[in-house]
């Protein structure tokens, strides 16, 4: 990816055109009507390779078939995609061998065709070692830019070369940099810790840079505790973060 792609910065607060912003129920709409398209979305699965890939199967009006399956924990991950025409076509995005869940015309093994909400806890800490600490994108950008500067100085050793993932990581971190002063943003966000909001959730809020409480709840559903105290604190934090935003 070229760096100019990411270099195209935009005012996050003003330039957004969310494709699905105004909806109150995200999955509400013509698409979810199983009678019409026979679509099933089910994202409750557990696997070692796939943390939680959705299973969904679709069958079009004209008998097309689509399946999107996850493997059994022992099966080797494999992604296959195949397409024929849209009307009578067959879509398959399979990740397992052997028998899977591939519904046809809404039969889907007796499961409901209404999509289940994918609200889940954002449990990052459980999956990482104890010595790992989450970084906000703006913090990561500072660190990576520092490293890049150092490496340029040390670049007389041709054997030390920054890998492609470094550049991509740096581009991503700088593109996503919503705050000019990461320390101040961190200090403001630390207030959320009073309400047992985890580091990862705090970083997610920082990275997403939401503007309103409904946006916070939509993007980090695990914060939706119903507690008035949490909501007040989030509101305060959002107000303070708005002052720290960089509009570059």
């Amino acid at each position, binding site marked *: 990816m070229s760096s100019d792609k990411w270099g195209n910065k935009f005012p996050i607060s003003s330039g957004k055109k969310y494709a699905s912003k105004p909806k109150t129920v995200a999955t509400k709409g013509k698409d979810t009507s199983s009678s019409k398209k026979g679509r099933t979305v089910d994202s409750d699965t557990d696997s070692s390779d796939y943390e939680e890939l959705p299973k969904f199967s679709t069958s079009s009006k004209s008998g097309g078939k689509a399946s999107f399956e996850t493997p059994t924990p022992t099966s080797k991950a494999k992604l296959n995609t195949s397409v024929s025409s849209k009307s009578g076509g067959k879509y398959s995005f399979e990740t397992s061998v052997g028998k899977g869940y591939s519904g046809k015309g809404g039969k889907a093994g007796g499961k409901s065709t209404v999509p289940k909400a994918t609200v889940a806890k954002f449990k990052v800490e459980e999956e990482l070692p104890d010595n790992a600490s989450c970084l906000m994108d703006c913090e990561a950008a500072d660190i990576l830019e520092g*490293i890049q500067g150092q490496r340029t100085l040390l670049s007389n050793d041709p054997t030390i070369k920054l890998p492609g993932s470094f550049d991509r990581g740096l581009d991503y971190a700088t593109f996503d940099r919503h705050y000019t002063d990461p320390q101040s943003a961190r200090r403001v966000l630390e207030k959320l810790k009073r309400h047992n909001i985890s580091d990862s959730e705090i970083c997610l809020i920082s990275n997403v840079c939401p503007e309103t409480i409904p946006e916070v709840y939509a993007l980090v559903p695990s914060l939706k505790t119903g507690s008035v105290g949490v909501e007040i604190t989030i509101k305060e934090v959002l107000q303070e973060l708005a002052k720290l935003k960089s509009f570059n």
Partner: protein
Amino acid sequence: MFFHIVLERNMLLHPRHFGPHLRDKLVAKLMKDVEGTCSGRHGFVVAITGVESVGKGMIRDGTGFVSFPVKYQCVVFRPFKGEVLEAVVTMVNKMGFFAEAGPVQIFVSNHLIPDDMEFQSGDIPNYTTSDGAIKIQKDTEVRLKLIGTRLDATEIFCIGTIKEDYLGVINDPGAAV
């Protein structure tokens, strides 16, 4: 999401590198070996930020190589299910679109694109709303939510959605033209 993490690795060093600059050689080799790699547990190792300790070397039987346990700090990037990312679209087809967020590739199936967006083939394939106001094509920046991740030894691949509130296009390069 980026993480700062302390990892450990046994580094094998050839005896020709022994001398006053042994540590430097070790660190250089560590960077070369580790940066840019990907592990299912930790994600992409983006950069090494420091070396905490270099343990005592152990000579490997039968070879001249010496194994040094090295503890190092690094920045890693690992995506998680439920994470919201801002990504750049790299390819659009009728199955959906691919996007990149840092070193991670994300596929958004057409089932996870809002229903009012239709696929338009042509020179620049895209998904467009019926009124043409919102367009997803190559280089469009989208905010998406990860609903699944596949972690390989060498690659991380994710499935995302933009079919939820506050997700979708955040910057359309075509709009400026």
